């Protein structure tokens, strides 16, 4: 029986029942919309296609309306949201493609492969724009390391990221790692990639030119990851570890490397007009999105798709998320030339269909039509919702809790200082980043461990700085202030290296949007991000939303991760975070206000996540960053380091210790006159502060620039040279922290836990 357009149910397909529709994650209203679009009932194959494309992961149905509020434009933005990756102009004819994406759900189930394939996906998003990947960063959030399962997840994720990125040969230049019980069951694994190209080499994921040829390129299609996009759009529950394994894909970094080189060669050859990763929802999303963007249609026969196993149904082939595959639109007549390039790289390219004028996503199996869906309604017609939101009672109670009794450190100030500096959140992440190749391609100017990673643009003396940031505790307690703070910190990190903040990509990790307190978090975070991005002129060029990061009803902290890009026009002006020479003057730029709400001090010393987190004065923050940039450009700084998690205690320790080196580091003597409790002064995480140092000869110039910009600038001390200590005086206390002790705490914390606990 035909159901129209020649589409017939396939023998053996299950009947379309309300239960089947529900299992596919479509509401009755959404199903009615499907029927309106088709003018008939969908086939089983079509139901699968709609289910994937209208999943949260692909369709953004609960986020789209709010995301439209984000600023996306600036003169330097070449490609905003909606493509495989955003692209900005970074000068001298160079363009940077960059994007961040989550792989939280797979990593919770199988940390090694989950994280590895996350890297694979984000690399493909970047090189399908025609850009060569030049750096990766990540943002990782786990539960507390005293839990064996957390150590298993942490170790597996780090190894997965390392093994994949190292094999493909992309340096890791930075990132962040947080540990907090708010991520106990659901780790956050976000991977970011930066790629460079000449501006004229940009290519997009489009299916232009009726009669051009669709080719499936790269790895064969198997049964792995079917409905991964839908899986990523549901909560996890107890026992999902085993049951969900088939939805996790397995990575093959060597094939990825081949695909990378082959794709860049293909793009340079001019034989193709469009290319897109078969990522979430595989052939379905790549085919329909390329047609949707171009206003064309595509027709493909699944019998022509190279498969790994026999007997795969159209449903399975269309929804497989097998890794390391691309959909390519070749110019008609150039198919052999395409195949030749792929063969050089030991990969397959199969002609599977063509671009049509029909405007539909049409799929055949051995010539029999199994799906025929209008492309644009499929890709853009997903119903969107703006659900009500309200702050949760639990978080309200925590946020408004009186934390002033906690200003007193139970075992004294020195003990608190060492606990904060040795907390895995503040402590060096050397154990992590030494498992990542940080120097391959010989352009890593600033490696992980500083404020932001810096990569040189080959052939120039320019650099691109990048930082990923989100303090989940701050966003949990106050999502708007926390999200603003994440943008501010990311911009400050980039500015501290001497790079001008230019644009961001974001990865919004939240619980279920169907819950009012989660929707409140999401809405507030987007609004905070909107305000900060508008103020700093750092538009959003793309990113990813990951909802349903929950297990058994308990959601992660709202975690809107910011991936910030900055450009440094002259690498000779780069600034690093470590103090340099004895006798250098140390200044604090900005004002101490002693904000302990949501601080690492409260967590590490009082086991508490509470209080109002630090707010952001956007105007003051921007002025501060411009002031730091002016100081960097006039080459008067010996060092610059931002103040964030762990407060001044962490900043001063890191500036003294510098890079991990036996016996390395310099001492400092500082004195604060602020009338604040010692803990609030040393551990407060107030935004808008940077600690800089300069030679005595440049002191006057530093002061003058601060006055010019109207930035509070206080001389707080002096660098005292190698082998000494960090000495801190306040109006009420004096601390002397030997460098050996600090070094042991700061560099020894995470290796101590991972090597001994196993």
């Amino acid at each position, binding site marked *: 029986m035909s159901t129209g357009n020649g589409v017939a149910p396939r023998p053996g397909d299950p009947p379309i029942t309300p239960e089947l529709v529900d299992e596919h994650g479509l509401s009755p209203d959404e199903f009615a919309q499907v029927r309106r679009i088709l003018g008939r009932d969908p086939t089983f194959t079509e139901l699968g296609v709609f289910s994937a494309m209208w999943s949260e992961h692909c369709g953004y149905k609960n986020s789209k309306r709010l995301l439209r509020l984000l600023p996306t434009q600036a003169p330097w933005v070449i490609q905003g949201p909606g493509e495989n990756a955003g692209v900005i102009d970074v000068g001298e004819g160079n363009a940077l493609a960059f994007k961040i994406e989550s792989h939280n759900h797979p990593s919770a189930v199988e940390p090694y492969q989950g994280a590895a394939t996350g890297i694979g996906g984000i690399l493909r998003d970047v090189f399908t724009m025609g850009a060569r990947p030049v750096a990766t960063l990540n943002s990782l959030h786990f539960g507390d390391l005293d839990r064996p399962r957390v150590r298993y997840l942490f170790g597996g994720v780090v190894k997965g990221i390392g093994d994949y990125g190292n094999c493909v040969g992309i340096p890791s230049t930075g990132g962040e790692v947080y540990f907090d019980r708010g991520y106990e069951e659901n780790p956050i694994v976000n991977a970011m990639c930066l790629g460079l190209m000449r501006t004229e080499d940009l290519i997009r994921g489009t299916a232009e030119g009726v009669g051009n040829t669709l080719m499936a390129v790269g790895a064969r299609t198997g049964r792995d990851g079917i409905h991964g996009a839908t899986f990523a759009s549901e909560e996890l529950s107890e026992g999902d570890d085993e049951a969900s394994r088939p939805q996790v894909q397995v990575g093959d970094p060597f094939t990825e490397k081949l695909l990378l080189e082959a794709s860049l060669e293909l793009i340079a050859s001019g034989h193709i007009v469009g290319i897109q990763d078969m990522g979430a929802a595989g052939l379905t999303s790549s085919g329909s999105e390329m047609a949707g963007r171009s206003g064309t249609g595509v027709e493909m026969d699944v019998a022509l798709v190279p498969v790994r196993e026999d007997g795969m149904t159209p449903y399975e082939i269309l929804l497989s998320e097998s890794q390391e595959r691309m959909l390519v639109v070749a110019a008609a007549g150039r198919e052999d030339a395409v195949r030749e390039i792929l063969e050089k790289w030991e990969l397959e390219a199969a002609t599977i269909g063509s671009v049509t004028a029909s405007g539909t996503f049409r799929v055949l199996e051995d010539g029999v039509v199994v799906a025929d869906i209008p492309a644009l309604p499929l890709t853009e017609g997903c119903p969107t919702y703006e659900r009500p939101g309200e702050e949760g009672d639990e978080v309200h109670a925590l946020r408004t809790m009186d934390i002033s009794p906690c200003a007193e450190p139970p075992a004294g100030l020195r003990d608190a200082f060492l606990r904060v500096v040795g907390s895995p959140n503040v402590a060096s992440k050397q154990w992590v980043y*030494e498992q990542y190749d940080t120097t391959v391609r*010989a352009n890593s100017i600033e490696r992980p461990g500083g404020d932001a990673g810096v990569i040189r643009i080959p052939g120039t003396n320019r650099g691109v700085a990048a930082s990923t940031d989100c303090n989940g505790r701050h966003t949990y307690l106050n999502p708007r202030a926390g999200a603003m703070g994440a943008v501010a910190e990311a911009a400050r990190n980039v500015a501290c290296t001497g790079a001008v903040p230019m644009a961001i990509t974001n990865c919004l990790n939240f619980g279920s949007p169907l819950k009012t307190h989660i929707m409140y978090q999401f809405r507030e975070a987007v609004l905070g991000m909107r305000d900060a991005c508008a103020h700093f002129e750092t538009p959003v060029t793309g990113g990813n939303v990951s909802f349903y990061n929950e297990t058994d009803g308990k959601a992660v902290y709202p975690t809107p991760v910011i991936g910030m890009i900055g450009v440094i026009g002259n690498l000779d002006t780069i600034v690093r975070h470590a103090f340099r020479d004895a006798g250098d003057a140390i200044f604090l730029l900005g004002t101490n206000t002693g904000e302990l709400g949501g601080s690492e001090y409260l967590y590490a010393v009082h086991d508490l996540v509470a209080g109002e987190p630090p707010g952001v004065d956007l105007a003051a923050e921007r002025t501060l960053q411009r002031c730091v940039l002016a100081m960097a450009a006039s080459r008067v700084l010996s060092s610059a380091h931002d103040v964030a998690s762990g407060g001044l205690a962490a900043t001063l320790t890191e500036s003294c210790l510098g890079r991990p080196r036996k016996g390395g580091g310099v001492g400092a003597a500082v004195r604060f006159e602020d009338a604040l409790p010692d803990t609030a002064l040393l551990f407060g995480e107030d935004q808008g502060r940077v600690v800089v140092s300069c030679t005595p000869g440049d002191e006057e110039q530093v002061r003058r620039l601060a006055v010019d910009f109207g930035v509070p600038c206080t001389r707080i001390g002096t660098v005292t040279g190698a082998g000494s200590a960090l000495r801190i005086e306040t109006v009420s206390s004096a601390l002397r922290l030997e460098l050996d002790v600090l070094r042991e705490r700061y560099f020894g914390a995470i290796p101590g836990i991972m090597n001994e606990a196993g």
Partner: protein
Amino acid sequence: MNVAVITFPGSNCDQDCVRSVELASGSARYVWHREVSLGDSDAVIVPGGFAHGDYLRPGAIARFSPIMDAVIDFGRGGGLVIGICNGFQVLCEAGLLPGALLRNRSLRFQSHDCFMRVERADTPYTGDYRVGQVIGMPLSHADGNYYADPDTLAALEAEGRVVFRYCDADGTVTQEANPNGSLNSIAGIANAQGNVLGMMPHPDRAIEAVLGSMDGLPLFTSLVGALARAEVA
């Protein structure tokens, strides 16, 4: 004067090596692994990376790439061959150098700076260094733990074929300064004739001040100089 840089499908450092030779005022070109001839090359660099994915054992499959017969003939005939990182592993698998690179003592991939002491300054690769000079550069590998049987090891030492040895910043060879567990803290060795060099650290990532170290550049200037002298001779 022409240096051939072999490109396997999984080579990641071929471009870094070409640039290094060029910064040393030499000229270099890529030779695809499926070619069977080195053409008119005067020296060969086997670069770092994961030649064929290395899912089996680093270099085990690369050894069978078509170009390798030419590389082996070239090396046995006295031609200058350098293997860096994965290239060192490939040369061991191909039998041009003795021993093997085992999994790091930490059992993890390691990427960080290291110090090495120059043990020989009279090879074609180290003429621009001094004996005892301490040089710093990045290393980046999972399998860099040099192993050879006792006789081979004794021969390497007796014949002065250990070219680079891991050490601390002061040049002292200690177990603490040995990043991966290599026997005798070996970071780089030469074959008996002295024309084939293998090393795990990356001189190709230490060629400009802006990268934090220029200590790798003399390796390439030494090579280019040796080739130039050979041309004159």
